[in-house]
């Protein structure tokens, strides 16, 4: 079998092909001519084959790029090689003010076929000014596209795509890639495959075709691809499904090429080697948040190199540049998704090991950002005892957001050390504990039983006094004054926040009507008899509420902070669910499309989730009207709370029977319910509310 060619050879071949096909192509750069053939040998052979068009230049990135601009203005194609991308700053002026502006500055569109190649990145011990990743400094310049070399894309395709735009482009080439071999034939290794997706095959998707769990997507440029793939492989050993997405074009960001993958993803991480702050990853996150927020499970997470100057010493360089470990750590900090079978590629081999770079004090257990709205959550409970041994992926804590309870999973195997007590508020990103590798924890005494947790001895210091395995924080020493009373249970605090916000922000009015539900109950019974599955008045009312959306869109609309009304595209009906585990408001989305049986299934599914403690943020999202079930026996009327962001809440109390006079002076019995409608008076007036309830009554009576 033939081995895949190296990345530098692939790029060299692409350049040769370009020159063979385009007799107006130039290549300018320092030491690019043979026999040197460029600092990284990418241009070898070109000056021999095309001596008049491949020119070694003086040391002047500004001058080289300016000349390239002039040649492009004359209609030529120019490849510029900046020996180290760090020096691209010297070419910033002609990039910013000449070659990009020239595309439209002269009154008509002028093709500017310039590709500026920039070897970038560290990992070679070249030091502070020869190892940087300056891609972020070139984002957002009109008519400038940014590309990056990748082991998954053919360089010829990338060059062609860049030139096809007839606009300037920069091609960033991570130096560590040059000597690596390309991935070909759709395979990365025995487990992972890859495919090219989107326009021009822009996105390379590396995935495990046999994986079943919702994947975490790691978006990485070509230079970081190998590190992301290594992290994905190790994450798979710990039960996580990870897909790596590598674009050829960094900017403009190709969101469309990702769209089909985002909906099924468990989380999205952007990994890049540049230092944090104003990065390409920030741009990706901003674009995904703006254009694909409904598809995301949570905010896009970023991971970069440390905010420091890059050292020359390789052992120090490794500590600050983004590595596979940092990517893996970020993956494992995401709550576990649908579990997948643990992959073992070496039958009989050792079990997955802890990250080798874990510090002696262990890895922190951080609270991830679980939604974009909350600034703090409540650590509801620890699911594993302090000092207990945990497995990677094992749920260890329950955190309550404003809407749901989420379980946090251990990011690695080891011994859990709790640092925050249950019931405490915790901010997204804040550590609540640590997991130390079991080998770093002192063994129990020989006659011990299961005492993995060390003594909570005071911290000792000084020569000959070994530090305690788990130094107690100073705040834990001594006695604390306990305030009188007992704390509000965390589950009720969530409700308290919603109710208090509703009362504070929503000027509510309330109307109730008595509705004859005799026919509705008969309808439900018939449906149950026909299908053999229970259907109740709740489902019939939900169906009626969904059906009224088109006639009364204002009652399903939302008032924005700046006083604008946003209509709902479809009725997504919230439902109060209290099965003894707390009050929750899960949502049945686009309820008008569901028949009565499907609605009943949806209600049962949500109630079972509540009972099992499995309701998640996504189950609560998107409500535009609430049906509050106040059907405790004997309740005749109830005034529901309007959740913030919703305009109306309908209460469905217990039904009761009454005797009424019929038209001919006789009496008859009927079953009635006093439906109540609480509504935001800023959006809805009494007449609308009355008309809505009358329409609802008619629907139920029919």
């Amino acid at each position, binding site marked *: 079998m033939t081995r895949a060619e190296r990345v530098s050879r692939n790029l060299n071949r692409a350049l040769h092909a370009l020159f063979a096909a385009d007799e107006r192509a130039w290549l300018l750069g320092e030491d690019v001519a043979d026999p040197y053939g460029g600092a990284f040998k990418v241009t070898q052979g070109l000056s021999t084959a095309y001596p008049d068009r491949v020119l070694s230049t003086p040391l002047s990135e500004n001058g080289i790029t300016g000349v390239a601009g002039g040649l492009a203005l004359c209609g030529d194609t120019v490849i510029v090689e900046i020996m180290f991308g760090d020096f691209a700053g010297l070419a910033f002026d002609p990039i910013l003010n000449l070659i990009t502006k020239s595309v439209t500055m002269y009154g008509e569109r002028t093709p500017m076929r310039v590709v500026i190649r920039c070897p970038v990145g560290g990992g070679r011990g070249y030091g502070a000014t020869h190892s940087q990743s300056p891609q972020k400094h070139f984002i957002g310049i009109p008519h400038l596209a940014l590309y990056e070399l990748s082991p998954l894309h053919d360089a010829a395709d990338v060059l062609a795509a860049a030139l096809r735009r007839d606009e300037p482009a920069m091609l960033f080439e991570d130096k560590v890639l040059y000597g690596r071999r390309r991935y070909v034939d759709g395979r990365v290794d025995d487990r992972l495959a890859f495919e090219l997706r989107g326009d021009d095959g822009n996105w390379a998707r590396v995935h495990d075709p046999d994986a079943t769990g919702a994947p975490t997507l790691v978006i990485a440029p070509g230079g970081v691809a190998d590190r992301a793939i290594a992290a994905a492989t190790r994450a798979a050993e710990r039960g996580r499904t990870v897909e790596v997405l590598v674009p050829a074009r960094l900017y403009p960001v190709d969101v469309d090429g990702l769209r089909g993958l985002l909906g099924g993803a468990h989380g999205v991480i952007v990994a890049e080697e540049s230092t944090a702050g104003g990065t390409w990853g920030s741009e990706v996150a901003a674009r995904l948040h703006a254009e694909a927020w409904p598809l995301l499970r949570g905010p896009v997470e970023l991971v970069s190199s440390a905010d420091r100057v890059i050292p020359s010493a390789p052992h120090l360089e490794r500590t600050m540049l983004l590595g596979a470990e940092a990517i893996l750590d970020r993956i494992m900090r995401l709550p576990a998704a649908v579990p997948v079978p643990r992959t073992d590629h070496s039958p009989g081999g050792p079990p997955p090991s802890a990250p080798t770079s874990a510090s002696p004090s262990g890895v922190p257990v951080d609270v991830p950002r679980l939604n974009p709205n909350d600034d703090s959550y409540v650590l509801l409970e620890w699911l594993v005892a302090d000092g207990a041994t945990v497995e990677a992926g094992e749920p260890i804590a329950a955190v309550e957001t404003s809407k749901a309870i989420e379980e946090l999973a251990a990011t690695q195997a080891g011994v859990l050390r709790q640092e925050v007590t249950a019931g405490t508020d915790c901010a997204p990103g804040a550590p609540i504990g640590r997991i130390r590798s079991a080998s770093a924890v002192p063994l129990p005494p020989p006659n011990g039983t299961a005492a993995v947790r060390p003594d909570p001895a005071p911290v000792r210091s000084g020569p000959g006094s070994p530090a305690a395995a788990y130094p107690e924080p100073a705040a834990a020493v001594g006695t604390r004054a306990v305030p009188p009373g007992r704390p509000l249970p965390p589950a009720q605090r969530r409700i308290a926040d919603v109710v208090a916000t509703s009362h504070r922000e929503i000027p509510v009015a309330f109307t109730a009507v008595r509705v004859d539900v005799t026919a509705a109950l008969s309808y439900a019974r018939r449906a149950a008899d026909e299908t053999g*599955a*229970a259907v109740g008045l709740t489902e019939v009312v939900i169906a009626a509420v969904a059906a009224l959306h088109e006639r009364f869109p204002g009652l399903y609309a939302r008032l924005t902070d700046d006083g604008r009304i946003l209509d709902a595209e479809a009725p997504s009906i919230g439902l109060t669910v209290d099965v*003894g585990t707390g009050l929750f408001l899960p949502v049945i989305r686009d309820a008008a499309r569901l028949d009565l049986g499907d609605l009943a*299934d949806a209600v*049962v599914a949500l109630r079972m989730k509540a009972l099992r403690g499995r309701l998640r943020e996504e189950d609560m999202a998107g409500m535009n009207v609430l049906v509050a079930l106040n059907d405790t026996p004997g309740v005749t009327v109830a005034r529901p709370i309007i959740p913030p962001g919703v305009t109306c809440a309908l209460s469905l109390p217990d039904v009761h029977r009454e005797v009424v006079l019929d038209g001919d002076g006789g009496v008859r019995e009927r079953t009635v319910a006093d439906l109540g409608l609480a509504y935001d008076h800023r959006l809805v007036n009494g007449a609308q509310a009355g008309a809505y309830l009358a329409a609802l009554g008619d629907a139920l009576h029919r």
Partner: protein
Amino acid sequence: MSSRLVRLVADVLELPVDQVDAQTGPATTAAWVSLRHLQIVAAVEDAYRISLTPREIRTVRSVADLRTLLAQRGVPE
């Protein structure tokens, strides 16, 4: 002797075992309200390591229906 399933339902409904039989269901037993229905289903799922669909959950109207679902899955009662 009562079956495991009957004992399980009786536990959830907080009824003596001898008051639960195949016909016991929401139509015959006041204690079998909607919340207890979900708790019975959850208890059966846990005890027999099965998972019922929402539609199946709604079809359960008696202990006999639960028995039928177990039989359909080949799970001994």
